[in-house]
């Protein structure tokens, strides 16, 4: 019992270290730079307590559930030996987690309003909504395709940097043609597509695949799926902008 409690305190403390920097930064700026007391100290303290407990459970759950789940699926797929199902699975995970992503919904809506203001589409709520919807489909499709291609790369063991460098070159050249308003949104859409639950699952899937396939190193070949998923949306969003305008 005592060792259990001791362990719990130790674990909680190591989780606390993760939020300590925020605590220090916010407190010192509020007191020494803005020089004002906290507006609602009780809310802040109870909020941070929630953050601590939530992060603790999240990290516990990663080890028990999400990591093993991703790895087991990777092993089962490679045991099955059918690469097509694996590619379809990658696409499905990418597409389905992105299409409902709240940050993407917000960005797509904003992009629709911008497009209407620039007179690229009619200024009605229907056309804005349809613009936003197809933008979301575009991004979700590109994330699905990215995971699929990334999985294929792991299976083949191709080095990642050629994909990324060629991707960047495409993005840089598209930037020159894309309407100015869409560029910022395109760049941002790359970062927001991968949610906190997708990331560990996809990371475990990649590492599991690289472990299961002979001749692949989990560290060299296993990572990189998330990089693919944040690269392709930028490309497709700019392309979408160019086609619509």
């Amino acid at each position, binding site marked *: 019992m005592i060792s259990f409690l001791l362990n719990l305190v130790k674990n909680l403390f190591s989780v606390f270290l993760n939020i300590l920097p925020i605590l220090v930064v916010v407190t010192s700026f509020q007191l020494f730079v803005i020089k004002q007391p906290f507006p609602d100290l009780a809310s802040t303290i109870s909020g941070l307590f*929630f953050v601590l407990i939530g992060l603790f459970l999240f990290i516990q759950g990663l080890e028990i559930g999400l990591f093993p789940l991703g790895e087991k699926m990777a092993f089962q797929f490679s045991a099955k030996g059918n690469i097509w199902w694996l590619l379809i699975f990658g696409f499905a995970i990418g597409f389905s987690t992105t299409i409902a992503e709240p940050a993407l919904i917000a960005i797509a809506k904003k992009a629709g309003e911008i497009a209407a203001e620039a007179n690229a589409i009619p200024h009605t709520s229907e056309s804005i909504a349809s613009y936003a919807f197809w933008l979301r489909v575009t991004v979700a499709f590109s994330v699905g395709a990215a995971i699929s291609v990334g999985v294929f790369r792991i299976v083949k063991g191709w080095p990642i940097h050629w994909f990324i460098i060629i991707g960047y070159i495409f993005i840089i050249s598209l930037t020159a043609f894309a309407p100015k308003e869409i560029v910022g949104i395109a760049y941002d859409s790359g970062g927001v597509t991968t949610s906190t639950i997708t990331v560990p699952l996809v990371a475990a899937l990649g590492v599991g695949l690289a472990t299961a396939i002979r001749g692949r190193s989990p560290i060299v070949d296993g990572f990189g799926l998330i990089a693919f998923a944040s690269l392709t949306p930028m490309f497709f969003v700019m392309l979408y902008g160019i086609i619509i305008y």
Partner: protein
Amino acid sequence: MDLIYHSANVLLGTFKDVLPIIGVILFFQLVVIRKKIDSPGRLVYGFFLVVIGLIIFMIGLEKGLFPLGEAMSRQLTTPLFLSNGDSALLEEIEKTGNVYPSLYFWTYIFGFFIGFSTTIAEPALIAVAMKAEEVSIGAISSWGLRLTVALGVAIGIALGCHRIVTGTPLHWYIIAGYLIVICQTYFAPRMIIPLAYDSGGVTTSTVTVPLVAALGIGLASSVPGRSVIVDAFGLIAFASLFPIITVLGYAIIAEWIAKRGRKVKLKKV
């Protein structure tokens, strides 16, 4: 009442996020793979912990941290704060709306530290760093990776704030950044490259995006002549570009030092 409303909102958002994943996994597990998983109860329990943990985490952020961060971003960009008690300067700012870029000094510093500290608390990055340490058998330390990534985000946000104030076009920075990444890739040890690219996409999620967006919107609406839409966006792009540069840079330097150390040792022998 407010808490209940917030919690319900977060709950709904997270379930929307989780349902498609569960659907896809179940479909492939039951229809395609059709094999029993050992200890399914434990997996479900772990998945449940992740979801509940994330929900509690988000409620805590929305209750305690986001309102405070937004208030601080607003305060740091008011003319009263910028003029720092100089009444002539305050009058000039209020009359003309012109602010020298250097007056935003504290905003840049705040951007730097808030970028750094929120990245350390980012759950997705914690997950990837844990995995990287496990897979590399300790060659990559979880904290080392996270501190390097956080430094990258910090530099990115500070520079991004400065860009909003000066109004330089976003794409010049992005293009320059990508060119640096391409050059670094050539020199970097092969092992770190995929992880470095991944860290760019991982940094910007639950904690960093809302706080950084608040800072960007606060800044863009206070600087005259900036459009909130065009300029406030783009901070996040900075926050996902610079970690790639710092992680690759750190790996290049670490390898160089290790090689030099080996050479020195050989000479001694």
